[in-house]
C-alpha cells in the first residue's frame, strides 16, 4: 500500500462505519433520493417490521417516472387525475409514505418537482464528497458534482431508510482520461457514447470510474452530470469527477448547499478530495476528445455505437460468433440493414429530455438548432421535457419554450417521460425515435420501439430533417 488514494477511495474510507475481516463494509449514506417506482415495497417492509426512517432529514422524495408530462392542473388550478390506475396508485403510495415517515417531498405540482437526478444537484442536496443513493441506476449522475453516487434495489432502499447505511464491498477503480478540446457540434453526450462504444457495455463492471483529463476539467457541471449519468451504461457502479472551482460555483447559494462559515469549511474539505498525485487505478482508458464525432447508437445495447458519418456495421465481419449473433438480432429488431448509412435512417419521434439531457444547457443548445426552422412533416411526435420545474421556468424566462413551440415541438411538464415507457409518453411499435435518453434497449421506449441515442443538438437536427442527421450541417445562422 502506497497510502496514495483516488477520489473514490477517499470518499469510501470517510464513510466506513464498520469493516468486516472479509472486506465488506458498513457504509454511511449521506443522501437518499426516493421516487415512486422503487420505494413502495420498501416502506411496506418498514411498516411490517415496525421500523422508522433513521434520518428523514437526509432523505428527499420526488415523483418522476409515472407522471404524465401533460399539464397537471386544470384551468381552475385543480389537480388533474391520472388515467392509468396503476400509475396513480404508485404515485399515491409515495404521497402517503413520505409524510407518514416524515420525509421531505416535492409533489407532482410543487415548483421543485422534477427527475430525481436533476433535482438533487440543482437543489444543492447532492454535494461533493457525499455518498448518495437512490433506487434508480442513473443515480451515478450525481458523480458529476464529485459525490460517490450509485443506484440500489428496493431491498437496499429499505435498508438505507432503516439504518442510513449499506453493506457493501469496495469496487475496483478505473480512470477514463479524456484530453483535448471538443470538436464543433460534439457534446458530453457524444463523448460518453463514444467512450462506452469503444470500451463495451460491460467494461466497467465491478469498477467505479473517475473521469479525468483536460476535457473533463474544462467541462460544465451539467456536462459532467450527463457523462457520470451514463457510467452505469458502461457497467460501472458509479462515475466521479473531482470537485473543483466549477463545481463550487455551480453549488454556491443553492437551497441545501452549506452557507456562511459552513460553506468555507466545506469547500476546503472538498478541495482535499482530489486523487493524490501518483495514486494508481486498477484500469486506465485514454481518449482523445478531438477524435470524437457526433455519435449515435444503431442497435439495442450501448455496445452498438457509431459516428453519425458511419454506417450500420456488418455482423458477418465479426470474429466472435456470440457478437455476430447479437448484432444480427439487434439489426433485425431495429429494422435496419448492414451497411446502411446512419444519415439515411428516417425517424418519426423526437425525445429531448431524461435525467441524461434535460438540463438548461441541453435545452439552450437544442433550441439554437431548431430556432427559425420547423420539424419535418414526417415527424409524428416531438417532445421537449425539461428535467425539473426550475429548469422549465428558467427555459421559459429565456424564451426557449417559444422557440420549440414555433418549430413544431411540444413543451411539456417535467418527468422521466419517453425514456422508459412508464407514463403516457411512448414510441409506438415499429417506430423510430431520436432520443436524448440513456438506453436503447429492446422495448425500452414502449413495446417494439426503436431507439437511437444521441445528444440534444443531434436530436434537434433529426427533428428538422426527419432522419438522423449530422448536426454540424445545421448549426449556425439559418
Amino acid at each position: 500500500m502506497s497510502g496514495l488514494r483516488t477520489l473514490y477511495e477517499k470518499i469510501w474510507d470517510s464513510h466506513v462505519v464498520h469493516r468486516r475481516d472479509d472486506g465488506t463494509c458498513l457504509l454511511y449514506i449521506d443522501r437518499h433520493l426516493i421516487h415512486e417506482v422503487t420505494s413502495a415495497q420498501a416502506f411496506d417492509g418498514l411498516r411490517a417490521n415496525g421500523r422508522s426512517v433513521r434520518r428523514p432529514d437526509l432523505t428527499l422524495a420526488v415523483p418522476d417516472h409515472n407522471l404524465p408530462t401533460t399539464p397537471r392542473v386544470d384551468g381552475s388550478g385543480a389537480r388533474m387525475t391520472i388515467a392509468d390506475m396503476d400509475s396513480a396508485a404508485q404515485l399515491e403510495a409515495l404521497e402517503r409514505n413520505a409524510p407518514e415517515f416524515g420525509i421531505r417531498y416535492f409533489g407532482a405540482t410543487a415548483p421543485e418537482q422534477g427527475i430525481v437526478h436533476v433535482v438533487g444537484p440543482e437543489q444543492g442536496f447532492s454535494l461533493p464528497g457525499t455518498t448518495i443513493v437512490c433506487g434508480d441506476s442513473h443515480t451515478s449522475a450525481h458523480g458529476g458534482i464529485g459525490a460517490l453516487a450509485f443506484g440500489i434495489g428496493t431491498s437496499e432502499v429499505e435498508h438505507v431508510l432503516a439504518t442510513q447505511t449499506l453493506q457493501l464491498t469496495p469496487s475496483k477503480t478505473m480512470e477514463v482520461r479524456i484530453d483535448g478540446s471538443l470538436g464543433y457540434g460534439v457534446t458530453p453526450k457524444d463523448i460518453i457514447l463514444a467512450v462506452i462504444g469503444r470500451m463495451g457495455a460491460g467494461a466497467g463492471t465491478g469498477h467505479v470510474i473517475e473521469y479525468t483529463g483536460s476535457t473533463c476539467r474544462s467541462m460544465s457541471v451539467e456536462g459532467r452530470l450527463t457523462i457520470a449519468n451514463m457510467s452505469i451504461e458502461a457497467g460501472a457502479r458509479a462515475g466521479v469527477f473531482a470537485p473543483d472551482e466549477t463545481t463550487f460555483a455551480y453549488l454556491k447559494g443553492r437551497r441545501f448547499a452549506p452557507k456562511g462559515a459552513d460553506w468555507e469549511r466545506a469547500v476546503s474539505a472538498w478541495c482535499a478530495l482530489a486523487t493524490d498525485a501518483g495514486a494508481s487505478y486498477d484500469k486506465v482508458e485514454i481518449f482523445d476528445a478531438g477524435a470524437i464525432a457526433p455519435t449515435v447508437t444503431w442497435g439495442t445495447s450501448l455496445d452498438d455505437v457509431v459516428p453519425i458519418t458511419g454506417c450500420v456495421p456488418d455482423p458477418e465481419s465479426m470474429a466472435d460468433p456470440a457478437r455476430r449473433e447479437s448484432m444480427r438480432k439487434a439489426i433485425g429488431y431495429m429494422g435496419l440493414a448492414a451497411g446502411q448509412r446512419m444519415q439515411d435512417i428516417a425517424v418519426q419521434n423526437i425525445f429531448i429530455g431524461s435525467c441524461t439531457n434535460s438540463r438548461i444547457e441541453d435545452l439552450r443548445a437544442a433550441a439554437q438548432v431548431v430556432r427559425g426552422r420547423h420539424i419535418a412533416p414526417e415527424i409524428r411526435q416531438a417532445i421537449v421535457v425539461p428535467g425539473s420545474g426550475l429548469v422549465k421556468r428558467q427555459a421559459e424566462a429565456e424564451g426557449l419554450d417559444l422557440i420549440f413551440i414555433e418549430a413544431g415541438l411540444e413543451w411539456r411538464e417535467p418527468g422521466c417521460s419517453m425514456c422508459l415507457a412508464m407514463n403516457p409518453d411512448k414510441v409506438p411499435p415499429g417506430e423510430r425515435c431520436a432520443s436524448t435518453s440513456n438506453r436503447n434497449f429492446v422495448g425500452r421506449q414502449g413495446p417494439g420501439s426503436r431507439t437511437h441515442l444521441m445528444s440534444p443538438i443531434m436530436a434537434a437536427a433529426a427533428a428538422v430533417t426527419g432522419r438522423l442527421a449530422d448536426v454540424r450541417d445545421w448549426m449556425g445562422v439559418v
Partner: protein
Amino acid sequence: MKPVKEVFGRAYPLGRDNVDTDIILPGRFLKTITRSGLASAAFESIRAEPGNIFENPVWKGAPIVIAGQNFGCGSSREHAVWAMMDLGILAVIAESYSDIFSGNAFKNGMVTITQPRHNIVRLLDWAQVGAIAISLLSQTITFGDENVEFHVDPFRKECLLKGLDEIGLTLGFDADITAFEQDLSQRQPWIALPL
C-alpha cells in the same frame, strides 16, 4: 428471506450477453406496489419469439438460468429479480453480472454464480439434455459426471445459507452508526439538514 442451500433442476440455456433488466421485466410492469404477480411478464420479449426456451415444456418451470456476460445490466429495478423468482428461478449461472443485479438477487435469496466462458459453453450444452445441481455449501455445480467449483463472498454465503435478515444484522451495529453520526456532525455539520 428463505434460506437456500442447494438448487437442483433443469436450466434455461439462455446464453445471451447483456441481458438487461428491461428484457427481464419491461418498464411498464414496474407499476406494482407489491413484490408478487410478475411471472407472466418476465422475459416478455423473448417469450414472444417462436420456439423460445421459456415456453418450451422441456424447461418450463426450471429453477436455473444460464447466460453470458453482463447479465442484469441496465435499470436497478429489483422487480426483475422478483419476476424471475415468481417464475420459479432460484439461481443464475453467467459469465458476469451487473453489480446492482447481483446485489438485488442476493437480497432475495437468489444465487448468482460466475463461471468462465468455457464452463458456460459446457453448461449450455448440458442444459439441453439434463439437470444441474448447485450446492452453495460446497460451492460446486454438478452436471452429468462433471463438477465445477464457484466462488461466493463469505458474507453473502452465510446470509444465504441462514436466510438472515440483513437489516436486522445492521441494526446490531446501531451504536457504531450513532457514533459515526456524532463524529460526522462535528466534522461536516452541513450534512445534516433542517426538516
